[in-house]
């Protein structure tokens, strides 16, 4: 199972609030090659979740086009090739952890996955012993982990995650990051991860996209080429911090404009050499 390429081409989207148009995405193009890992960063309310909802055919774009594996998002979603973890866990309160993880199979009309596999996923997200618990009996972070397990259950070829680790403590977050990296390396689903954690984005992704405040445009497209598997020692690497600092400067409204101009110049001058002259590059 190979990942599927994900392409946004000149996508625009506006909502209307009380009759007034609210442009949320402005002529955005983004190309995620098959099997790539892309992290999406941007200020709160800029339109990240909306982008994800477009890719799931939950909203329709006003103009531009959206392709997953050359097909429309709707038909790809129907085929079960896409896994998703929303910002809210969105668990069904009357179903147990197990049953919630199994839900996508029922939606897709597939036969029940074998219990071994579900148990494996539950173990993966550290919820062993809670198989039969209901969402109401779990903590916020535990619920989020159920949602992560659920997004992985169908072995998707495209994995869309919206701040999946938002409610986790630092240690657990690192642990989940490692697991996600492992799964991604093994199965290579095309992954789009929305996050507010700059270090998390750089740690996990091949490439970090920084979006502008609403309406969202691509402010910078920063390749990250540290070798894999990436371990805890990367977090102490000065090159790592250098990349993080550049992204932070882009996200800070005070320094954003200047940094963006610099990024563009750097990209134009030397498209390949630009990213952190990282000593760790393989």
């Amino acid at each position, binding site marked *: 199972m190979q990942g599927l390429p994900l392409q946004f081409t000149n996508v625009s989207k506006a909502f209307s609030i009380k009759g007034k148009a609210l442009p949320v995405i402005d002529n955005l193009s983004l190309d995620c090659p098959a099997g790539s890992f892309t992290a999406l960063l941007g200020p709160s309310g800029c339109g990240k979740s909306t982008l994800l909802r477009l890719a799931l*055919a939950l909203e329709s774009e006003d103009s531009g086009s959206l392709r997953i594996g050359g097909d429309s998002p709707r038909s790809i979603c129907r085929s079960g090739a896409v896994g998703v973890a929303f910002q809210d866990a969105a668990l069904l*309160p009357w179903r147990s952890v197990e049953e919630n993880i199994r*839900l996508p199979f029922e939606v897709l009309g597939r036969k029940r996955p074998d219990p071994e596999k579900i148990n494996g996923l539950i173990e993966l997200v550290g919820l062993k012993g809670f198989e039969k618990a209901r969402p*109401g009996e779990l903590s916020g972070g535990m619920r989020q982990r159920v949602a992560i397990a659920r997004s992985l259950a*169908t072995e998707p070829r495209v994995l869309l995650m919206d701040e999946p680790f938002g409610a986790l403590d630092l240690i657990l977050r690192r642990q989940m990051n490692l697991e996600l990296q492992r799964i991604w390396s093994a199965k290579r689903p095309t992954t789009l991860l929305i996050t507010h954690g700059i270090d998390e984005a750089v740690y996990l992704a091949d490439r970090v996209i920084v979006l502008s405040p609403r309406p969202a445009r691509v402010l910078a497209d920063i390749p990250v080429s540290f070798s894999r598997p990436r371990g805890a020692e990367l977090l102490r690497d000065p090159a790592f911090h250098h990349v993080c600092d550049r992204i932070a400067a882009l996200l800070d409204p005070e320094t954003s404009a200047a940094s963006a101009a610099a990024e563009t110049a750097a990209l134009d001058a030397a498209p390949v050499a630009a990213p952190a002259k990282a000593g760790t590059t393989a």
Partner: protein
Amino acid sequence: MTRFGDHLATGVLILLLLAAWEVAGQLKLVADGTLPPLSAILLRLAAEWREYWPHVAATLYTASLGFLIGNAVALAAAVSFCLWPVAERVFRGVNIAAFTVPPIALAPVLVIALDGETARITLAALLVYFPTMTAALAGLRSADPRAVDLIRAYGGGPLRTLWLLRLRAALPAILSGFQVAAPAAVLGAVLAEFGSGARWGLGTFLLGSLGRAEPDRLWGIGLTATAIAGLGYALSATLAARTTSLNRAVNIGITGPEPETANEAPLRRALLLAAAILMPLLIWQAMLFWADLSPIIAKTPMGVIDYLITGKTAASAQTRLLAALAETVPITIAGMLLGLGFAFALALLSFAAPLLMRALLPFALVTQTMPLVALTPLAVLILGRGITVTLVITISVTFFAAFVVLAQGFAMIPKAAFDLVDAYGASTLRKVRLIAIPASRQWLFVAARLALPKALLGVMIAEWLATGKGLGNLLNQSRGYLDYGMIWTVAVVSILLSVLLYQLTPVLEWVGRSDRRVR
């Protein structure tokens, strides 16, 4: 407090209220003994048990079949309306008509058209249909939109969403619909027996006992009907309590938007409205065609128009009708506002003082099943024949359905919402103001929809049996004179009037609409 302690306290409270009744009865405190002591009622009941039981069996049979059929139709309808919102709008007229047609006016007509037993079951089913349908539809539509998104993201269509999410999410609402429907089925059965000349049934029994001026017998029959209804109510309530706690969303819940109608083409809107108005007429005509009755008894829509507008009866009919409406309309509006206010107050009480509420509930239930026809003579003795008696009866018909829906709404408020204000040490009063009232708003509209058309029914029953005024009296007189034209006219006009009242809810809803589009 422990669960056991809760039950104990509720039990003690109920006993206290019963003791108060006994004392009031013994001392003839209420209107010269119209309220007999409980012991006298029960003793009489025990002594006459043999006489009761064939009546009980007949009513139980009619009510249960009506309950089953009415609910089956209601659920099928709610699911269809959820899947095809257009269908709901086309059938809106039929729904309201089914809900608002005064059972007492309908019973004799049904008995002519169908055989007796079928007519009685139909009436019981008719009273069951609307509360379950509305509650179920609201429940189906209230499913967590984030979960809907999730299922859609995995390519699930409307049917999968229905099956995996909406039906289960609607379960508490459906069961709360049953809670209203159970007493309604009994009331429908009793009213139908009352008006259909059945041989057996509590309604028949009641009719035979009315002339004898024996309050303890009347109360005995009323309490028996209450016990039957209470059984159905308790069953649904128990099931509802189980599912509700599981259904509470774990995060602060967001309800999905109602199907969009704001930017709809005017032509389409007009067509749908026309369809909604024509549909009941079509069904009316079709049923008469199918039943094959004499046009003297069974008036078609054209027959009613002829009677009221174009025929030679028109002048007299119009004068009588307008005079009746002038008396009925103002008091209906007053009654429905009071009924709704009372329901809201009760629901708040049940939220703020659940214990007291649970003790009061059985007594509230009595007003629902204690057949109005039996209650009204007693109410007249206590309150006289003035405006008060009409208002009290109207409140008693309107408040219960509204109350159940509101209380359910309060119970569905997610825990997280309260945790938030609890954290700031909010008093109960403040919790009510900040969370309970705003969060129950959507339920208030459902409640209003249930209450508004019922108000007219209450007023008409009171007018018929107590005050001798208005539309209710006109209907009663027409039955006496075998003036079938007027019977049909009153039925049609009262339905139209209720439709008008029902249309007030969307207006209210529109006014109260400020926080709908949250995601």
